């Protein structure tokens, strides 16, 4: 079981309110991603759930039990830290065994769980090494191993992939998703990378300045962003946000159109511009179109085989049924 409910949870550091009171429900077995720009309070929120910070108000319920005052160890949660936080003077085996040793588990049960975790995480050959002798990805797996042997009711990940290089990050992303599919345990994952959020989450919680901007499945957020912030944050490359007369034409303060919802032509279209930068990725091509008179640059996704380059003239036509319209307060109309 790993049902976590936050009721009116707030956090203040002195006078500064980092997290205004918020409510959130995390179902058992869900993979929830907290995403937002740096300083949005997502890590603080995770630390509140972990018990590493005291709440300034509200209640935290874990499996229906009030855990607001419970010590971190008593909450039955396991955390994977950004720096991995491995114990440098202990071997991998001892690192993984540490939580079980602290719980006073019998030796043979410890050994069984270590072997199972090591097999699952491909660590069997490294059990007697020290963390300092491992690569970043291996250290990450040790940190995950240390978390899974406790069989916690939920896993907490604090930006676990941000210290890895790009290729390894994609690999570890898959491994964590597979781990979730296998264990079916609740996972709460904090990241500033919306790609990680989109690829891994069952449910995304978008945070800004401590406030929850929107909660929903990745595709819900992608299709129906509730406000301008979510619209601009979710999706890569970013949604084009246009203001002024162009938006007024559609009866809105701001309109948003995703790069893939703009048609490209060399002959005719709604907006004319010139290609500033063109990125040919093979599968797709991204153009940053300048000189349209409606925005500094409009990002467009076109076919991978398209034969247009820097300096070429281009015509753009948005798919009007895919337009997002936002009012003066930034909310969706």
């Amino acid at each position, binding site marked *: 079981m790993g049902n976590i409910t936050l009721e009116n949870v707030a956090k203040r550091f002195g006078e500064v309110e980092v997290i205004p009171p918020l409510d959130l429900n995390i179902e058992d077995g869900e993979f929830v991603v907290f995403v937002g720009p740096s300083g949005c309070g997502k890590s603080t929120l995770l630390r509140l759930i972990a018990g590493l910070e005291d709440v300034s108000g509200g209640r935290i319920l874990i499996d229906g039990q009030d855990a607001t005052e419970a*010590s*971190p*160890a008593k909450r039955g949660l396991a955390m994977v830290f950004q*720096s991995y*936080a491995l*114990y440098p*003077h202990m071997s991998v085996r001892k690192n993984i065994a*540490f939580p079980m040793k*602290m719980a006073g588990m019998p030796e043979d049960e410890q050994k069984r769980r270590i072997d199972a975790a090591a097999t699952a995480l491909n660590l069997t050959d490294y059990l007697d090494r020290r963390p300092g002798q491992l690569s970043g990805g291996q250290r990450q797996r040790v940190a995950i191993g240390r978390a899974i042997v406790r069989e916690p009711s939920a896993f907490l990940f604090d930006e676990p992939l941000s210290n890895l290089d790009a290729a390894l990050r994609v690999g570890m992303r898959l491994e964590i998703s597979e781990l979730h599919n296998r264990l079916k345990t609740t996972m709460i994952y904090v990241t500033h990378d919306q790609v990680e959020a989109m690829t891994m989450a069952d449910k995304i919680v978008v945070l800004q300045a401590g406030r929850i901007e929107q909660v929903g499945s990745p595709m819900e957020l992608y299709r129906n962003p509730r406000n301008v912030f979510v619209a601009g944050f979710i999706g890569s490359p970013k949604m084009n946000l246009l203001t002024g007369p162009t938006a007024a034409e559609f009866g809105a303060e701001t309109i948003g159109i995703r790069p893939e919802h703009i048609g490209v032509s060399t002959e005719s279209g709604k907006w004319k511009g010139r290609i500033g930068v063109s990125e040919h990725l093979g599968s797709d091509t991204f153009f940053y179109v300048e000189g349209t008179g409606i925005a500094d640059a409009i990002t467009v996704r076109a076919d991978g085989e398209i034969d247009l380059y820097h300096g070429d003239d281009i015509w753009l036509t948005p798919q009007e049924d895919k337009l997002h319209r936002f009012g003066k307060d930034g909310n969706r109309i």
Partner: protein
Amino acid sequence: MATQRAHKAARLMISPSVILLLAWMIIPLGTTIYFSFLRYNILTPPPSWTGVENYTYFLTDPAFIPALVNTLVLVLGVLIITTVGGILLALLLNMDFWGQGIVRILVISPFFVMPTVSALVWKNMFMHPVNGLFAHLFRAVGLQPVDFLSTMPLLSIIIMVAWAWLPFATLILLTALQSLDSEQMEAAEMDGAGWLSRFIYLTLPHLTRSITVVVLIQTIFLLAVFAEIYVTTAGGPGYASTNIPFFIYNLSLKQFDAGMGAAGGVIAVIIANIVAFFLMRAVGKNLEL
């Protein structure tokens, strides 16, 4: 091969200072060894060759074994007090509290007091059987004041020296504590480790390297404690607080026997090396030199 040329240049550039330092060390050592084989009393020159006679006299002197034991007890006693006390003080000072900047400076300050001064302060203001603070405290609760320096001279000196070296240990260990990764501590907290477990499994292993540094550096200086003994007990009563340096001083300067003093110096160097050897074997592996 730029790097090889750089190596050569570096060696050439550094050689004058290396040669100077080497001469600085070798010449006095050589002179001492040479003197140790002479019968050389300053009052009755000229010196004459006697071979190992000085060594025989030195090693068979009735004060030699007590002095050796006292030296080791002094070194060990001070090491234990300063490392254990230093760890505890460092843990306290590492916490957040009001006025910690001033408190830290106050804690460090005994290290800046000269050994002679601190020993005299201890002798006259704390341990004096009539005027000392301890004597007043003993009388206040109706006890007979203790004459520390004559009834427990070595312990008194250990206390004085430990007092002077405690700040050093605290300072080194405090800086080490401050470099302990807080995420590791939090991870251990989530893993269910209590305060004591976190100390034993995380803090102490993290401190081993600094403890090694504290032990090695202090040993070098503690083998040579002299001023505290000179101004308080003068090695007495009897030989009760005589250590090797004080013993050598007694022989060479009080009896004007330069040859005997030199022999004692050579033996002291050998003893220091033996102690260093065992220390390095015991704790040096933490240093990864």
